[in-house]
């Protein structure tokens, strides 16, 4: 028997599972998000025509809704979500299986990760909702964001109420930007 094809009894090792992530930036920080959690990536310019302003939003990080097909998405500013200084986003991630879209500054590249480490327990603030964990990419620690963590169910309910109460307005043409 060719040794190269010989199997070792009891060796049930599976090929290592990997996950495709998109590396994106907000301000000076690099984040990763599972590629399969994103339905579409648009430029903020292209989204502007489909955006409505939430005039009385009580969730400061959401000031707009965006339409995609028949669905409406709450647009979250990632800089405010992560408590960072305001940035100038150029892209919008429209997330799958949620009603959330996220404004980010730029995409760095795609990467493949094979290990996701749990967030150390010493981190006990809001970041526990923000991140699925941490990963090492090119010897750099990168937080992997939790797509469901951008808005809580309570925040979505509040925003739904604002929309139902008529707090949305189409953006004037001269100001057709969601940035």
């Amino acid at each position: 028997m060719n040794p190269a094809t010989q199997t070792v009894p009891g060796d049930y090792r599976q090929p290592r599972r990997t996950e495709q992530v998109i590396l994106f930036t907000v301000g000076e920080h690099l984040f990763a998000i599972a590629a399969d959690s994103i339905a579409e990536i648009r430029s903020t310019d292209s989204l502007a025509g489909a955006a409505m302003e939430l005039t009385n939003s009580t969730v400061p990080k959401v000031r707009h809704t965006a339409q995609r097909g028949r669905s409406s998405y709450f647009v979250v500013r990632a800089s405010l979500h992560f408590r960072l200084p305001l940035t100038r986003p150029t892209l919008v991630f429209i997330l799958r299986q949620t009603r959330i879209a996220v404004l980010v500054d730029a995409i760095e590249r795609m990467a493949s990760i094979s290990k996701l480490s749990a967030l150390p327990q010493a981190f006990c603030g809001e970041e526990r909702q923000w991140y699925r964990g941490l990963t090492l990419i090119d010897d750099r620690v990168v937080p992997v964001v939790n797509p469901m963590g951008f808005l809580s169910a309570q925040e979505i309910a509040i925003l739904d109420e604002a929309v139902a109460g008529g707090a949305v307005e189409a953006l004037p043409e001269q100001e057709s930007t969601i940035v």
Partner: protein
Amino acid sequence: MNATLEVVAQSFVLLHLGGRRFALSADIVAELVQPGRVFTFPHTTENLEGVLVRRGHIVPICDFARRLLGARLTDNRYYLIARRRFSLGIEWIALPVTGQCELITAEMLPATGDYAPHVAGWLSHEGEIVEVLDLARLTPGPLEETLPASESTPIEIHP
């Protein structure tokens, strides 16, 4: 029943922070490492500076000097890697210290109510009273659940 206090000599790591000395039980100290690359990302937990990578582990860095001294340690920073007990098990945590750490053997007396909650006890070393730190109360994160009174170990006190 006679209460007795049993004082046993233990090993401690003595840390120098801003002109003061503190002690940690040597049992929980893994190693002292040179300053390396620190990674930061947004979070809202106080006194966490970021993380470092050590032996394949992602280790949070807790600036405990800020809580002990009211100021961040800036000079001669090394990292003392210690094991911190959390509600979901033990994890490593990196503590910025000056490079001058020493291993001593001493007898620790338990802290009374006069001490801050993060002081587990105190010991006398070279004529100085040194506080022994309780990492679980000094660093952020969920505390390990305490045992119910019926299951806790009784303390013997010998005069």
